[in-house]
């Protein structure tokens, strides 16, 4: 049975696109058929993070408007054959995305894939609402910081009112993904703690992704962190989050490097 998952946050720059790519790749690496869909019309970036930017021909709007077939717009990942991307348009106006057109494309995607993962634009306006409308599940990406938590709360409100599930009297299955988490700053109490954020938002925790240079390096080379640096801390957090999404019950741990400083240096060196 296929699942539509929206990765959303309200606030910009918290790690939605990074998380879409990493979770999508992690689920695909476990053998499931996954498509990641860029809903950030006008500011597409998922193609760059996935390393598919040279291969974009058609986009979501072309498919919605009937100018291209879905199969023509999908780009299959070169490293992982169960992973595909549907890019956003870079130039068109987001009003070109009609609700009916999006509904048709989502139905078609559901038939082809086990997971349809939608990368939401920032904000709470139409673009974000279109991205979440068809969702069965939501990953709310939050940084341990006041404005991000506040915006996540607003997004949770929208998920409970402005989605197809909500209209049918059902609930979107919501999960909190805490990203850019800095254990050292948390220890010094300079950052909201995991418990604080969970208490305020009261939705289940999907994972804690640490702040890490591996994320930046991966986006430099155009690969989800789970493909580029599969043993890194952020990749491990994303792999575990993907297993939880697939229904496994796993305890969430705070990601800390268990090695000493010199091991760390030699790991870089290798």
């Amino acid at each position, binding site marked *: 049975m296929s699942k539509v998952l929206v990765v959303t946050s309200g606030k910009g720059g918290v790690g939605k696109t990074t998380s879409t790519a990493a979770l999508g790749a992690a689920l695909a690496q476990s053998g499931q058929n996954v498509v990641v869909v860029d809903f950030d019309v006008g500011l597409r970036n998922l193609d*760059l993070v996935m*390393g598919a*930017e040279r291969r974009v021909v058609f986009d979501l709007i072309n498919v919605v408007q009937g100018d291209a077939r879905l199969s023509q717009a999908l780009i299959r990942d070169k490293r992982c054959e169960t992973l595909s991307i549907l890019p956003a348009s870079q130039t068109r106006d987001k009003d070109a995305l009609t609700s009916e057109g999006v509904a048709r494309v989502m139905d078609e995607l559901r038939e082809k894939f086990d997971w349809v993962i939608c990368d939401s634009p920032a904000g709470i306006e139409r673009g974000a609402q279109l991205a979440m409308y068809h969702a069965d599940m939501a990953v709310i990406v939050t940084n341990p910081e006041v404005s991000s938590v506040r915006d996540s709360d607003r997004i949770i409100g929208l998920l409970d009112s402005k989605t197809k599930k909500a209209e049918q009297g059902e609930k979107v299955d919501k999960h909190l993904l805490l990203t850019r988490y800095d254990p050292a700053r948390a220890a010094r109490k300079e950052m909201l703690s995991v418990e604080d954020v969970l208490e305020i938002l009261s939705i289940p925790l999907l994972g804690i992704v640490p702040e890490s240079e591996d994320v930046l390096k991966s986006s430099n080379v*155009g690969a989800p962190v789970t493909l580029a640096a599969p043993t890194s801390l952020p990749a491990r957090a994303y792999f575990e989050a993907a297993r939880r999404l697939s229904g496994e019950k796993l305890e969430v741990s705070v990601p800390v490097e268990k090695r000493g400083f010199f091991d760390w240096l*030699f790991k870089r060196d290798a």
Partner: protein
Amino acid sequence: MSFLANIFARRQQSSSVAKDRLQILLAHERSSGGESGESDLIRQLHKEIMEVIARHVAVDQDKVQIKVDRGSGCSMLEIDVEVPQELSGKRAS
């Protein structure tokens, strides 16, 4: 100091990959009147090539794959058309 050199070498590597990727992408986005210009060209080519093929064979749009690979200096445009069985049979006999 070799391990330090290594750290910097690796950092250099991923950022220079990033720079190369961006240069190629932006060169394409800036030329031919922005990305839409280039995509419009590809779409036009696709449309006209399909019209020529359609004069000879009935093709199913779902059996047509269009691929692009933008490089530095040149791009590859690849159009795969699955030709129906009857026709290839006729030609063979």
